[in-house]
């Protein structure tokens, strides 16, 4: 996740290996709700006949997940944290054609 810079660390482990957690602040969340457009739906419907990767969806969800992470980090930074540990992702369909990409973890300060 180097795109968020060296200053900020995110990890799905309890601690940041080799560093010491000095303070913790609480849960931070990042979420975004996305829809793919009808055109992509139709293409995916055709692709469903033969199976395999639905590239349009992969890209869309991947991009939306990055947005969710960005928002989670923005929350953490607004608390003065420099790392989020024990991060988890979840993707849920919340309405027909709409998916929520969600990331959460614990905002901490590491040294």
């Amino acid at each position, binding site marked *: 996740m180097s795109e968020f810079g060296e200053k900020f660390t995110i990890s799905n482990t*309890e601690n940041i290996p080799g560093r010491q957690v000095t303070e*913790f602040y*609480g*849960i931070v*969340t990042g*979420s*975004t*709700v*996305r*829809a*793919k*457009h*009808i055109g*992509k739906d139709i293409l995916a419907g055709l692709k469903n006949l033969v199976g395999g990767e639905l590239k349009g969806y992969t890209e*869309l969800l991947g991009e939306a997940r990055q*947005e969710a992470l960005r928002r989670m980090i923005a929350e953490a930074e607004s608390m003065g944290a420099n790392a989020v*540990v*024990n*991060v*988890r992702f*979840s993707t*849920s*369909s*919340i*309405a*027909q*054609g*709409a998916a*929520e990409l*969600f990331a*959460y*973890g*614990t905002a901490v300060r590491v040294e």
Partner: protein
Amino acid sequence: MNPELVELAIQFSPVAFLLVLGLVAGTILERRHFADIRVRETRFRSLPAVTFSKPPADWAVDGCGLVAGSVVVSLDYFKRFAAALRIIFGGRIKAFEPLMDRGRREAILRMKQEAAETGYDAIINVRLETSRIANANGSTTAGVELMAYGTGLKLRNPLGNALPTEGA
């Protein structure tokens, strides 16, 4: 006036009424909910909820138990309409995002409420779940359930060292 236009206007007036009702009432209720959430978040701010799977080494744990909170929320008519339009074109569905945010914070607050009432001082290993609740006909969405659960801990050395100073 063209009778067909009048007929059309009569046909669509209930929809227009519901849209305005949804917009006005939905906006007011949402604002109120957010204000209420902020008040309760301040009340529970000294009760930490974290995703650590184990308690930090310096905590002396005196008891534990599962705590959970959940809420089912739904969009108002106007937002549902705005979301439906967005779903045609794709992209970020702004109508849903405040709903998810306040639903999730509400679920976390209810979990904290339960923890506080049980006498716990902190919650660890918190998990957040989201599920879509479908209508009886299965096609349209009735609402979304947001759930938070974790392990409440009773501590012998309450986190007094870290209690906030006024205005912190």
